């Protein structure tokens, strides 16, 4: 089986399970919306939030919801005892990682389609003033976050207290994603749009994605072998 085909089959399997049960999609989305509402109640005063708060809230919601989705997607494999089968797939190990990563990115992407307009509405942020730039920033940020998260969630699937350990490991490592994501989004929603700033953060996010996907592909094999 070629690498690409294996990746595609794993993505299709994950998405089919998800389309049938809609478990992760609904819980993640509901949790993300609840987060945004909690932030709105605490940060919006007299109908207005401070400048740039929307960008921060968007990324916090993505990271919290992403954490939930990552934990759940591997917990499902563990509960139905399909993880071993997945590891026995006659394809290179990294294909399993790439398949899982793609599934998570698609799922988080679907959540973000709802989150971005919601944050724009509740925080009076002009999120959609530069849609292509925003899409690029959100996509690269999500890939970076999910690249680290997929590896860690996979590693932790057999560990004790994995639910608590995932955010403990994930958030310190993804600090650059949140800094770059928030700063770039903030630059996008400002009235005087500075393209150079957005370009810098986008370049940083792309570099982060490249480095961490490569590292994860290399690490996935040794850490997933018993």
């Amino acid at each position, binding site marked *: 089986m070629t690498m690409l085909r294996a990746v595609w089959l794993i993505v299709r399997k994950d998405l089919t399970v998800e389309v049938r049960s809609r478990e992760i999609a609904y819980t993640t989305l509901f949790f993300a919306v609840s987060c945004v509402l909690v932030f709105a109640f605490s940060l919006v005063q007299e109908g207005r939030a401070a400048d740039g708060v929307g960008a921060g809230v968007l990324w916090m919601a993505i990271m919290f919801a992403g954490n939930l989705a990552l934990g759940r997607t591997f917990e499902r494999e563990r509960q139905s005892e399909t993880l071993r089968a997945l590891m026995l797939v006659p394809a290179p190990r990294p294909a399993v990682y790439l398949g899982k990563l793609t599934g998570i990115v698609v799922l988080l992407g679907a959540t973000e389609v709802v989150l971005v307009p919601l944050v724009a509405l509740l925080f009076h942020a002009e999120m959609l003033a530069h849609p292509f730039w925003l899409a690029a920033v959100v996509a690269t940020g999500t890939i970076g976050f999910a690249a680290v998260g997929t590896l860690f969630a996979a590693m932790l699937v057999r*560990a004790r207290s994995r639910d608590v*350990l995932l955010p403990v*490991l994930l958030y*310190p490592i993804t*600090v650059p994603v949140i*800094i770059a994501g928030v700063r770039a989004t903030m630059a996008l929603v400002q009235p005087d749009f500075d393209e150079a700033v957005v370009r810098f953060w986008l370049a*940083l996010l792309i570099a982060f994605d490249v480095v961490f996907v490569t590292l994860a592909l290399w690490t996935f094999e040794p*850490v997933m072998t018993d």
Partner: protein
Amino acid sequence: MPKWFLPAAIVCGLMFVVSPFVIANAPFDSTMGLVYKIFYYHMPSAWMFLTASVICGVASARFLATGDARHDRTAWAAAEMAVLFGVLTLVTGPLWARKAWGTWWVWDARITSSLVGWMIAWAYLILRKYGGPGSEKLSAGLALFGTANVPFIYVSVNYWRTIHPATTVVPTLPFSMGFPLLFCLTAFTLLFVLLIKLRVRVAEQQSRLDALYLSLDDAR
């Protein structure tokens, strides 16, 4: 334990006892006065913190590549050193910053990367302790990611602004200020080497003991 361990430990202890006097004899800084003297402890701890982090990252990568448990023990010991010297760095830093900059904390590139690096070292130990069986590989993966992460944090925070004094001032220090720094640096390096040696030794004994228990079970 190797033969040099006890004499080295005695020398190290003596150096730490003498160090306050050496520091007290160093001249006052023309702009900062007395408060700058904390940096005789701050900078050596920061360097040891950085050294420990690098050792942990390199040993973890080698462990993942080779599967040799010796590298794992080194990485574990280094992670503990990183947490220890990280605390010293992060406590002495704000004490100085309060006087010099008028604020306890700033989100400067060096400071933020140190804080996140220290958190990763801490996460490493949490994973080791609570991860259960097989956590040594997982923590090696974490250490590798943590090491690769530091340049990204540095660049991203640096893009705002950096007010932390550069280490390029060190070679230009006059002898009266440079000597206490060198003295403290030697003391901290010695302490670091001794502690890491001791910690690796404990881990070795531990794994030897585990192996003995296992063979005892097999014999029954």
